[in-house]
């Protein structure tokens, strides 16, 4: 099911108040509009929600805004009022135990502004970053892309210590990234500009997580935007100084090329675990499919200490009907959204299946174009990607496969851009993800790491029910349970948002009454 962007949906829900006939009262003169709402997260866990209102107009360029903060049970905690430019937009928020950080973006002024607030509602810190034209375009591209609901893209909390932020920049000829770290226990901040020491033209980075002293990123480097052969690097930055602790090529450290997707810290040790897909040492991520899932144990200097690989061919085939190249019967290839480690040391990988199928519409268009004397170029590829079922893989603390399960859902198809046929299945999956084609929404792990919930959307077409559904795979007390919520209701629109572990927040919008209801429901 194609997802509607969080922002698109909420920007359309502007509250308007009509002026009644006859005498006036305060409420029908007052005007306020809801800009957007979002989650406030602490270590990937939902701690609360914000509603960002325009509460007044101050002058031609300035508005008064109100940030209404609620806790995870929708109890109102605080209203924060401030004045800012009329073009400001609130992108993300995080909570680290002693402050709440908000990331604002002003498209006209081309600025990113980070502001943190304490419990008293007073601003504790602010930091403004000016963006160049190309950086602005990159940033907008990042935030306008359909996102995995409830997963932050560029702002992350470090418990009781600070916040780390990452965003793409265009610096000179380089497409690069910039990392900022804000200490919340002291008035200090550092910036790491990757472009300063960049060789390849295109670098993009994803924040993986943090240890006690390191911030870890997976950096993909390539010579050209699409044609080059991308290489994966692991970059560790010292949390306290902002200096690079190490940068290692994950393709040359082990026996295989390794592409990390998650990190997990090890209790009582400074070492950390990296999990991700691996490829043949001479394979190419652009063309080949992964061989399986691997786990590396690394030290704080980026040295590989231990490794473990599980191949599709041998290890997973005991649990799934897999081919040597990672294709699962009826499901297709697997794209991994998240790998989590629970408090008992076990790991769970959450994936979604996809297949390459013929795009009938494109073939017809191509045929008509040729008949009409054209070149046969239709703008979309002759095939599309069919997104299939959800899959969870389970591993023991030694990262040995102990189980796998397929969760059936209705498939949907995403047309691919022209030329995508030359890409590897993995690269196609990245395009599907950017298009919002996957049904996966989020994974929320409890703070104690003893429970997690995976949320995904579906569109059911059966005799009993036809409409959207929200589905969950939950792990609690060592057991996995599934649940489904039908989203068809009397409301004009229903949307499910992430909530505290084991729950969801359901938003119902009643167009006729201009009413927006939020309710919290536990999952089964």
């Amino acid at each position, binding site marked *: 099911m194609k997802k509607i962007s969080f922002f698109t949906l909420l920007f359309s829900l502007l509250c308007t108040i009509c002026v009644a006939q006859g005498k*006036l009262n*305060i409420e029908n003169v*007052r005007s306020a509009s809801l800009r957007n709402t979002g989650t406030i997260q602490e270590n990937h866990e939902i701690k609360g929600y914000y509603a960002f209102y325009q509460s007044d*107009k101050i002058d031609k360029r300035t508005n*008064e805004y109100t940030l209404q903060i609620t806790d995870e049970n929708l*109890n109102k*905690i605080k209203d924060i009022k401030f004045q800012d430019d009329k073009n400001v937009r609130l992108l993300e928020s995080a909570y680290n135990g002693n402050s709440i950080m908000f990331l604002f973006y002003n498209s006209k002024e081309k600025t990113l502004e980070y502001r943190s607030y304490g419990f008293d509602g007073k601003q504790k810190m602010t930091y403004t970053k000016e963006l160049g034209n190309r950086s602005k375009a990159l940033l907008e591209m990042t935030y306008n892309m359909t996102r995995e609901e409830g997963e932050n893209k560029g702002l992350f909390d470090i418990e009781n210590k600070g916040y780390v932020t990452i965003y793409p920049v265009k610096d000179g000829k380089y497409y690069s990234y910039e990392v900022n770290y804000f200490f919340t226990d002291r008035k200090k901040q550092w910036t790491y500009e990757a472009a300063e020491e960049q060789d390849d033209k295109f670098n993009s980075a994803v924040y993986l997580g943090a240890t006690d002293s390191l911030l870890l990123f997976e950096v993909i480097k390539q010579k050209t935007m699409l044609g080059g052969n991308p290489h994966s690097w692991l970059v560790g930055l010292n949390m306290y100084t902002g200096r690079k602790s190490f940068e290692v090529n994950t393709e040359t450290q082990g026996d295989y090329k390794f592409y990390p997707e998650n990190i997990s810290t090890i209790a009582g040790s400074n070492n950390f675990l990296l999990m991700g897909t691996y490829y043949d040492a001479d394979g190419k991520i652009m063309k080949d499919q992964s061989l399986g899932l691997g786990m590396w144990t690394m030290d704080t200097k980026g040295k590989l200490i231990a490794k473990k690989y599980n191949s599709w061919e041998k290890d997973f085939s005991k649990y799934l009907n897999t081919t040597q190249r990672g294709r699962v019967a009826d499901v297709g290839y697997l794209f991994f959204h998240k790998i989590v480690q629970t408090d008992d040391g076990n790991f769970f990988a959450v994936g979604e299946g996809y297949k390459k199928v013929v795009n009938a519409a494109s073939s017809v268009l191509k045929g008509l174009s040729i008949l009409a004397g054209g070149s046969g170029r239709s703008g979309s590829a002759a095939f599309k990607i069919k997104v299939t079922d959800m899959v969870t893989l389970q591993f023991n603390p030694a990262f040995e496969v102990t189980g796998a399960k397929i969760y059936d859902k209705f498939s949907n198809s995403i047309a691919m851009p022209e030329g995508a046929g030359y890409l590897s299945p993995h690269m196609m999956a990245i395009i599907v993800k950017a298009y919002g084609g996957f049904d996966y929404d989020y994974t929320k792990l409890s703070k104690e790491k003893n429970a997690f919930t995976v949320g995904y959307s579906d569109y059911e077409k059966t005799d009993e029910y036809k409409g959207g559904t929200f589905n969950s795979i939950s792990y609690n007390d060592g057991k996995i349970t599934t649940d489904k919520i039908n989203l068809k209701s009397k409301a004009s629109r229903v949307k499910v948002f992430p909530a505290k572990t084991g729950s969801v927040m359901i938003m119902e919008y009643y167009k006729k009454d201009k009413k927006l209801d939020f309710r919290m429901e536990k999952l089964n």
Partner: protein
Amino acid sequence: MRLLLLLILALPCCSLFAQQSVSYTPLLNDSVQLSRIFQSINSGYLADSAAIKGDNKKYIVEIYRSRRDDLRKMFTDNSFFYTGKINTYLAALTGRITAANPVLNKLNPRFLISKDFIPNAFSTGEGTIVMNIGLFTKLKNESQVIFALCHELAHLYLDHSNQSIRQHISSVYSDDVQEKLKALNKQKYEKNKELDLIEKKLAFSGRRHSRLHETEADSLGLILMKNTVFNVKESLACLAILDSIDTDSYPTEKELPSVLTGAGYPFRAKWLKKESGFFGVSAGEEIKNKDTDSLKTHPDCKLRIRLLEPAVGKIIMINTALNPVDPLSFNELQNNFRFEEIQYCYDSRKISRCLFLALDLYKKEPGNIYPVVMIGKCFNRMYENQKLHNLSDIVALPSPYRDKNYNTLLEFIQNISLRDMAGIGYQFLQQFAGKYASDAAFAETLTTATTHFNAH
């Protein structure tokens, strides 16, 4: 041999004793009488509306209508009692006030007892005075009930409610405010800032009046009470009870692990895990205190006691009593209302509150079957709603604004799974299966719980 004989004789007695259980049958309402009462409220509304004069008639009628509609909803929701026993007793109580204060006769007040668990009494302003059973059960004697009713009668006599409506309407629709609102409606910038100032001014004036009204109602209420045979010193005791009335006494954290545990489904510590919330729980408490202080419309009860004390001290009491009307009926109603508030919560789908009250009653009366069945029914209902993802319709969410003991129960409900709901409810009932097997309501509740339990 003698010992054996005694033992044999004692066994059937034990068994007979075990089968005996105190139960409770909810009171039946006289719907015809209730319908008549509402008709009289509606006639009063029509007459009051017709009598309003002036430019702002439309707006005042609008508020009167909404007041009438709120009462209608309470009647529709079966929120009021009308039973022979209750109304006879209520008439006897209130009759003492009106008989001793002929000045009240022209008001023709109607007294109603609401099934609501919230400890409150109120005068709606059009002649209806309501006392919730949540308040009735917390008061210690008839004199305290009388003071609460006299206080509300004083509001009615002094026309406080209607005065507030008229004052609010005349402020909002005054030429001055209307002019400002018209100008603001056209104003592009800082419109809401100025609206906030107007609103604050109006709210401040409203709150000031409200506090003044409460003090006036205490004073006049005391005068009305003084003319009766009730003990006026209980006015101060009543206010002292009101001061701490929002605190729930059931020690949830201590009790739940022993009450909700069964052989096949032991209580788990993690079910009582508290959510830390933003900035820790203590911060939530800080918000609670800050907000409740700033939003309080009633003056602090301690202050009200201080203001009333000199007047009480001056009253010479002759032939007064704490319970001069019918102490037996007072006690009987207090007892019945503890069951009725549970029943009403259940019927009005306030299941988390129902469970809380039922657990409290179970602690106080462990031999009574009624709270046992209601606890079982609450778990059954929660299970059924949870299965359909609409638990939030019947269960409140934890909040730093709630009382700690009730909040602990709400957190417990959030922490248990669907399977737990089935398991806890079933095991709780199962321990009474032998004792209450012959009770139809118990058997039906246990059958439902068994079906839920077996589904997992």
